[in-house]
């Protein structure tokens, strides 16, 4: 058994509080990373398991597969083939899973006394999923996923915007070109054999990372993890996904008609990926632009001019690369051209002169506060266990809390300005979403697209 144990203790960042999230990590013989963090404030344990597979591991024609597969993980495994939720809910647990472009995660938060129930269940579906898989389950969950897609995209105002933006930003063979939810035709085309092949390729200990966080003794928790997961055979190495960013030249204007009352415009640029250089600066820039009434775009468009009902900026960073978006919804009677004109003024100003020191400091302390608030939960999406796994999978070091915070604390107004001017260039996507029959409200010279 190979063991690389390490212990870290948080340091003060120089600004604000120090993040002390001590952990132990070991790598089992089969390649599974096991990370344990003790936190005895509440008699619960978070079990959090990440697989390094997401929709960027799919190929055109079979999109949506990683997420559909995630659903099948809840449908029973060889030794417990009657549904995944029942024993865990009976144990007082809460559980869920999610898929994005880069990873798939599964978690339970259970009373301390039910930790073994959760480990038994998680390990059974990693080691013994396929014997319990049937065509009927597959078809049922495909129907469920198609309904998830209807609910969250097709039947939601502006719901198809994310699909249009990714399609415009990335070429068709780029693994970030499609949404994780996938295309209905692809979901219909997939088969049970493909499920088996996908499981063999990606669902094995060497492509996974397990965190146990909460009211446990670290040594005992590691013993239990070895016990339940140690015998599961290793699998084939997973090659990194090649996803070179293809820079956009010029402005790509797209337009979608939708069942909406008010038109909305999205501007999107390629930016650095998660934890890459300038990622934090772009996050801070988003705050400076649209967080709160006195932020630049909100103040101009919504507060002073009252030409927009809402405006938001976000740095959506993923493993390989990121997307920075600015989104504004027109007030009744206003056109998207008016919004664009007003936004250009502010974007040009922040790119040329940068934010003030005060603006950056406000954004920094807000990040720090949100970060600390998030550490109050050991489990669930975004809790400490999820964060330990994110750092481990994308940075190779679960103990990145302090350095993550320092990315923001150490940023400067000059750095934010430099990042803004580097990435908010003329190579961008401008997407208009307008009420049906009101193309005149969109940005002129846009290419009308039809998505479903």
């Amino acid at each position, binding site marked *: 058994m190979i063991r690389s144990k390490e212990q870290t203790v948080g340091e003060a960042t120089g600004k604000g509080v120090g993040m002390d999230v001590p952990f132990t990590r070991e790598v089992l013989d089969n390649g599974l990373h096991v990370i344990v963090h003790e936190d005895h404030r509440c008699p619960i344990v978070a079990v959090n398991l990440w697989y390094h597979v997401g929709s960027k591991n799919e190929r055109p024609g079979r999109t949506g597969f990683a997420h559909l597969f995630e659903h099948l993980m809840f449908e029973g495994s060889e030794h417990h083939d009657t549904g995944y939720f029942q024993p865990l809910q*009976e144990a007082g647990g809460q559980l869920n899973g999610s898929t994005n472009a880069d990873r798939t995660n599964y978690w339970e938060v259970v009373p301390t*006394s039910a930790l073994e*129930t959760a480990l038994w269940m998680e390990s059974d579906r990693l080691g013994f999923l396929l014997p319990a898989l049937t065509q009927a389950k597959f078809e049922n969950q495909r*129907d469920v996923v198609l*309904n998830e897609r209807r609910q969250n995209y*097709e039947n939601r105002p502006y719901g198809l915007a994310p699909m249009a933006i990714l399609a415009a930003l990335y070429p068709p063979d780029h693994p970030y070109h499609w949404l994780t939810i996938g295309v209905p035709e692809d979901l219909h085309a997939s088969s049970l054999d493909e499920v088996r092949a996908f499981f063999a390729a990606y669902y094995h200990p060497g492509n996974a990372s397990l965190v146990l966080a909460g009211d446990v003794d670290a040594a005992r928790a590691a013993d239990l993890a070895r016990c339940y997961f140690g015998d599961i055979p290793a699998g084939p190495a997973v090659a990194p996904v090649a996803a070179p960013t293809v820079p956009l030249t010029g402005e790509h204007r797209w337009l979608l008609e939708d069942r909406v009352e008010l038109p909305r415009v999205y501007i999107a640029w390629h930016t650095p990926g998660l934890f890459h250089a300038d990622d934090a600066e772009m996050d801070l820039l988003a705050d400076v632009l649209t967080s709160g009434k006195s932020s630049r775009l909100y103040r101009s468009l919504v507060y002073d001019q009252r030409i927009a009902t809402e405006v938001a900026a976000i740095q959506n960073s993923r493993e390989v690369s990121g997307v920075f978006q600015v989104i504004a919804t027109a007030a009744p009677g206003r056109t998207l051209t008016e919004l664009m004109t007003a936004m250009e003024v502010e974007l040009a100003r922040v790119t040329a002169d940068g934010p003030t020191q005060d603006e950056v400091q406000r954004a920094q*302390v807000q990040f720090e506060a*949100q970060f600390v608030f998030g550490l109050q*939960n050991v489990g669930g999406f975004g809790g400490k266990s999820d964060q330990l796994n994110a750092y481990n999978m994308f940075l190779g070091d679960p103990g990145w809390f302090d350095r993550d915070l320092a990315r923001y604390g150490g940023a400067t107004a000059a750095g934010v300005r430099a990042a803004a001017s580097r990435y908010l260039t003329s190579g961008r996507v401008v997407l208009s979403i307008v009420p049906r029959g009101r193309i005149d409200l969109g940005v002129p010279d846009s290419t009308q697209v039809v998505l479903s």
Partner: protein
Amino acid sequence: MSVDRSRLPVPGPEPHFRFPRIVTRTLPNGLCVRTVEHRGLPVVTVVALVPAGAATDPADRPGLAALTGDMLDEGAGGRSALVLQEELSRIGASLDTEIGPDATILTLAVLSRFAERGLALLADIVQCPALDDHEFARLRELRVNRLTQLRDVPPSLADRAFSRLVFGAHPYGHLPMGSEPALLAMTADEVRAFHREAYDPRRTTLIAVGDATHDALFDLVAGRFAGWAPGPGEPAAPVVPDMVAPVVGPRFAIVARPGAPQSELRIGHVAAARQTPDYHALLVLNAVLGGQFVSRINMNLREHKGYTYGVRTTFDFRRGRGPFLLQTSVETQVTAPAVREALAELCAVRDSRPATPDEVALARASLTRGFPRSFETTEQVARAVAQLALYDLPDASLEQFVPSVNAVEPDDATRVAHAHLQPAEMTTVIVGDADVVVPSLRAEGFPEPQVVTVE
């Protein structure tokens, strides 16, 4: 060590749960201050509970309580709206204002080192908001525009139509954000008058939870709220809406959304208040029926039929009798069978298939064993204490939760199903493609749905 995969490990004994001590003190001005020590991270959460919500809206001014709540941080204590917002962001404070049917709840979360500054801002926001004409006009316009946008959001349409059809003219018959005509008729004077009347220290409860002693938490609040002067006269008692007889309206209603790929559904009726002695039995019943993933209705509609991404049922407990409702979104083509299956499950749990001992055991275990994780964060603890204040519950009710749930037997679940679920009297609201849905409802033998609009 190898794993025995022939059977699941049996969880150990139920975790022993003790809610942390709540210390309650009253300031001379009548303000009730409750504190809870919660160690671990340098965070303080303060909740201000003002027992005036949407049910307090004058009949011709739906939305007044919500607009007043939203106006609070548009300038306060001599600061303009912009300056106030900058001061909040300078300390990383998170301020959330939630307007429910029975109360307005402000939640402030701050890092401990900014607690003093955060409280100073919260005190001004609650006690002396500017409520000026210019910000009022601006905010009202945003509200009206938001209502316009919501006409295209199926869950919002369904919620509004359901509340109106089930509660009629009762104070619970409108959603907190109100209606466009009422917003347009509203004045800044009305907002100021509402604030004067409803925001009074004698009616308000302040709850402080965080990484400090009871005394320090109390001093933090008292230092900023002790000078809050009560209004003239006796404080108005919180409105407890009268118990209502069921509204006799259409049992089936549809809000047309041509071409919609899914139908948004609401099925339910007026049910129980939070004070009902059947509270714990109803929680168990709901967990069997539709309160969690493994509940009957979700297993049927999602896991067996594939009609939906998910479905759940809720008893929405309030100061007065709140609704029982089932909510889901189903593929358009299967709307009629989905309604049929849902209603069949609601009938079955009363009559043909009452909750079994195994189901009740599962429901009890999931509620009781999962209880401690509801108190992991300062905000969760503060909100739990706010619920005690809002519903006039004794502090001991938190510690009584587990034994009370464990005392619920299958017969109790069946009894409360009979008492609180009347499927024949439920209202079904569908937001969907009428051209497809109406004929299919007809084919299933349902009454002709009435087409309703939501302004």
